[in-house]
């Protein structure tokens, strides 16, 4: 991790903690979009994190994403965090200008189903952007069509509001002959798969943060709650559940951080998919165990566990669902008799 990542994650941690304190976050309900919080995060310069120094950015790399996004996940921040950082980075690489304000992504076969026509200096794009995180509150969506990376301004299109199961916006946007002029599109310098890998790893980092928060909350709960005259944490069954949760958080975080820290991480087909698959599996295990340790209180809308576990459940299937990623990884391993699994495991052995 570079200094940029360290400074950003520390500042973000302060902003989020203040926000939690002033809003007395203790409910299980997902928070709505917060303009104030967005402003603080934006003022810190979050979108600059991965942009080159030479272009006025903070000069960070994908390796810096882990801490920054894990902090956001840990606090359950109601903002398009992965989308903002990755979107700004993509725009910068491609020399595209973004409108001021939050950005989101429409990347991947389940999200973007578009066609484009070329005219003199513009692209005419039509089709459906679906499951767009925070679509309704974002200024623009970055998407791919005909190998062009495109910034779609969000005003003037029909937005159908949906929520994921964590009540976060996951909207559908219909584009009808939407004209995109230069410099809002450019020949894509990365494949859809590469961009998807980074977006999914960003989500995975948020999941690691959320898992960490679930673990801490559960540790606190089992220390406070008493049954049979002693705190729950004195029961061996409960200790073993927590040990299991800890194993899973560490596995997921080590994998996700490890993949993000690879040089040119977006090219690392095997490693990224492995980290994404492992993290999603951990999320399911952690959600289940944390609810078991909490008893009925955890099953209420009021108690704050749900705020985190619902995100874990929803995020498992964003930027490619869990079985797609597993399938892709399996296909990779089984598709090339010249390269053994062991070679793949040891090839880029960072």
């Amino acid at each position, binding site marked *: 991790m570079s200094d940029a990542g360290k400074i950003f994650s520390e500042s973000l941690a302060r902003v989020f903690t203040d926000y939690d304190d002033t809003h007395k976050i203790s409910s299980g309900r997902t928070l709505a979009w917060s303009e104030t919080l967005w402003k603080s995060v934006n003022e810190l310069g979050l979108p600059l994190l991965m942009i080159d120094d030479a272009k006025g950015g903070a000069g960070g790399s994908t390796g810096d994403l882990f801490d920054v996004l894990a902090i956001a996940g840990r606090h359950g921040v109601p903002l398009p965090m992965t989308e903002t950082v990755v979107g700004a980075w993509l725009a910068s690489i491609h020399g595209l200008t973004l409108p001021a304000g939050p950005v989101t992504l429409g990347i991947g076969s389940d999200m973007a189903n578009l066609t484009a026509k070329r005219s003199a200096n513009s692209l005419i794009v039509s089709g459906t952007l679906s499951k767009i995180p925070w679509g309704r509150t974002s200024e623009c969506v970055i998407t791919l069509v005909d190998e062009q990376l495109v910034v779609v301004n969000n005003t003037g299109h029909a937005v159908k509001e949906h929520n994921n199961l964590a009540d976060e916006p996951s909207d559908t946007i219909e584009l009808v002959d939407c004209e995109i002029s230069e410099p809002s599109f450019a020949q894509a310098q990365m494949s859809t798969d590469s961009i998807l890998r980074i977006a999914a790893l960003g989500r995975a980092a948020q999941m*690691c943060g959320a898992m*960490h928060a679930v*673990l*801490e909350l559960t*540790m606190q709960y*089992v220390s406070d709650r008493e049954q049979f005259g002693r705190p729950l*944490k004195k029961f*061996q069954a409960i*200790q*073993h559940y*927590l*040990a*299991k949760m*800890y*194993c899973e*958080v*560490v*596995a997921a*975080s*080590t*994998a996700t*951080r*490890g993949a993000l820290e690879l040089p040119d991480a977006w090219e690392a087909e*095997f*490693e990224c*998919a*492995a*980290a*994404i*698959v*492992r993290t999603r*599996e951990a999320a399911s295990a952690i959600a289940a165990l944390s609810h078991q340790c909490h008893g009925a209180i955890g099953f209420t809308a009021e108690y704050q566990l749900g705020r985190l576990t619902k995100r874990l459940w929803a995020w498992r299937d964003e930027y490619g669902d869990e*079985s797609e*990623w*597993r*399938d*892709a*990884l*399996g*296909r990779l*391993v*089984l*598709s*090339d*008799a010249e390269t*053994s*699994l*062991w070679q*793949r*495991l*040891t090839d*880029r*052995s*960072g």
Partner: protein
Amino acid sequence: MQASINIRPGDLSQYADLRAEVRSFLADYARQHGKHDWIASWMGHSPQFSKALGERGWIGMTWPKKYGGAERTFLERYVVMEELLASGAPVAAHWIGDRQSGPLLLNVGTEAQRQKYLPGITRGETFFSIGMSEPGSGSDLAAARTKAEKTSDGWVINGQKIWTSNAHNNHYAIVFCRTSPLNEKKRHEGFSQFIVDLKSEGLETRPIENIAGEHHFNEVFFKDVVVADDCLVGEAGNGWNQVTSELAFERSGPERFLSNYALTAKLTDAMQGVDSDLARQEIGRMAAHYWTLRKMSSGVAKAISEGDPPNLEAALVKDLGTIFEQEIADTTRKLVHSSDIRSDEFFDLMQSYTVMHAPSFTLRGGTNEVLRGIIARGMGLR
């Protein structure tokens, strides 16, 4: 909770040359001697193989040169170990000496003991067993009752050990004994460790056949077995602390998720080109676990190389790793039955071997319940 949620992996990419050397050594050895016994991996006992490995300088690699070591790093050792395990090579003969008995002597042994035992270990000629478990003392190691009594010129050992792997093949065992009477309030005090020659007079080794029909472990009886003063390891009475750090070494390596990798290699080779959802899903999941465990496990090696005894991390990796390798038996069974793949006798043999050995993965070296207790303690829950 203070503990970190990350393990920082070791950087193994710098050792590509060493990895290539090990691979070519293994290929040559297999060409000359065949691979029929390369199923058991670190359960497979082959003095011949261990000797060949010792000649390459790949046993006790991190130890000082004056004891026959190569003064290489723990990460280099990691590369060698994982290549051996991935191939399924029979490494049991030297494994314990390299992994724990040697390091124990390096840590607390006398100069004379190091000179006497370590060079033989590194040459792949001297083999060690672990004498911890007893009939009444499994997970609860502090219940051990085998006792050693001081005499004028040494110690006399009486009692019984059990599950002693390869006691019938090896030269020595490090035997955990009670040397002061039990104090119920301080159960962990009053233990000592001894190097015992397994051919000593009064020592009797009786085979116990395992569920797979093999003679791997033993009962070892001690009847007035006399050992000299210079067989005491470390300090008398400090056995508990010593055995605890020895166990951390025992639990820390890649053998805790690669025990049956040879089967995985066979399986993934045989499945090449199979086009089914189930195959892709299962193999994809497997790959994700191996990749993650390897990151975590190399992190444990890195921590050791930096002088950090990684008890907590080692317990995490062993808990996750052994449960995962246990599942491989069933994953293989499911995939083989659902696809029309080429099988051969060796593959069939490997499968039944893994099915029968799988239960031991989560027992040997400390059960997963015991490991979870260690993790819970590390988390501040106990």
